[in-house]
């Protein structure tokens, strides 16, 4: 599997991590994997909620030193 494309949304407020991920997903191809980096603790919940609602695949959701790494695969 190729390396995921990283969207570094650490320490930003507007448009924020989820909006950055949505923008990144629009440019990605089906099958691509993206890794979102966020320092917003809300991302741990609201990003997976969106991924599930739209029907993409959540591959990982972990916190390291105050940074959430959320990995998602575009499936449609």
């Amino acid at each position, binding site marked *: 599997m190729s390396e995921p494309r990283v969207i570094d949304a650490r320490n930003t407020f*507007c*448009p924020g991590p989820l909006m950055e991920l949505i923008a990144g997903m*629009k440019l990605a191809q089906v099958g691509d994997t993206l890794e979102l980096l966020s320092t917003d603790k809300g991302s741990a919940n*609201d990003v997976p*909620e969106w991924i599930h609602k739209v029907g993409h695949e959540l591959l990982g959701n972990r916190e390291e030193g105050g940074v959430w790494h959320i990995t998602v695969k575009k499936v449609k």
Partner: protein
Amino acid sequence: MKILIVGGGMGGTILANNLARRLPNELKSGKVQLTMLSASDKHMYQPGLLYLALGRATPDELYRDQAGLLEPGIKFFVDPVEQFLLDKNQVKTKSGKVIDYDVMAIATGSRPVPETIPGLAENAEMFYTEEQAIKMFRRLQSFEGGKVVIAVGVPHKCPMAPLEIAFMLYDYFKDRGILDKVKIHYTYPIGRVHSLENVAKWAAPEMDRLGITYETLFNMKEVDGKAKVVRSEEGSTAPFDLLISIPAHRGMEVIEKNGLGQGGWIPTNRQKLNMEGRKNVFVLGDTTNIPISKAGSTAHFEAEALGENIAAMVKLGAPVRDYDGKVFCFIEAGKDRATYAMFDYLNPPDPKEPTKAVHWFKMAYNKLYWVSARGLL
């Protein structure tokens, strides 16, 4: 030193004038040459389109001649770049000229792409071009009631626009005396009514108070003009009589065609504002891929940091400061009240209760912008 600015919008113009004011002697002596290339001889105050769509501004108020905004000493050409030859420190323009540079700043901006959502361009009213805004104004005038849906694409220019149009439409319909026949329904792509948490905390109760309904986690998938519904990626539908859209944006085609960045957004260092991997190429405004608001205010503060840095490169041999992510956005909360959000990379905004004073400050800024573009404010 040859300094080249590509793009004559808000960011490019403020940067050019800032540099001209910092380097008057160097420009006079010929030690520095400052050149701007733009696609247009006109400069538009884009935030004014919101007012145009509501009949509160006319098109002529939004334009100035670009050449007239620039300080003496800046060489200005209406000749857009078609090729970026970064390894040669050159660009090639539409007219075929090859222009060398020692330092280049790219500020080509962004463009609305409603065509990326099937049915959107044909069925929605928008206010991101003069033509769209005039069309929206005429449509609003003939609208006599029904369900108004506001739908938001990602990413979009001016993060306050969705809220502003919702609140300003409320007052517009109220003033026309048809508010009782209108239902405003606001949708938003993420799980709250605005990307900024503190702004969302203020705006959601305000919508409740005014009877504006809202649905979050709503990303447009398609618009069915016959059935008059917007369908979302998340599986819901929003029926409408009048659809107002803040369309998704992309960077300019020339950026993508030259392979400078996916989606037309150039990978940019968020503090130094240099293009990743290039020390003498800087990027500002909507053109960057920095995860920050695509707004004139962002371009303005980036231009000030870059102006100081590029002038320091001339005088001291190195940049002197970082861009701290500063953004200041007015938020119109109706026809005569406004608040604002000021934030940077580390400090979130704390918007206050809207006041008439802030609204009138915004109205004043709409005129003062031309002073700002000249690098004076």
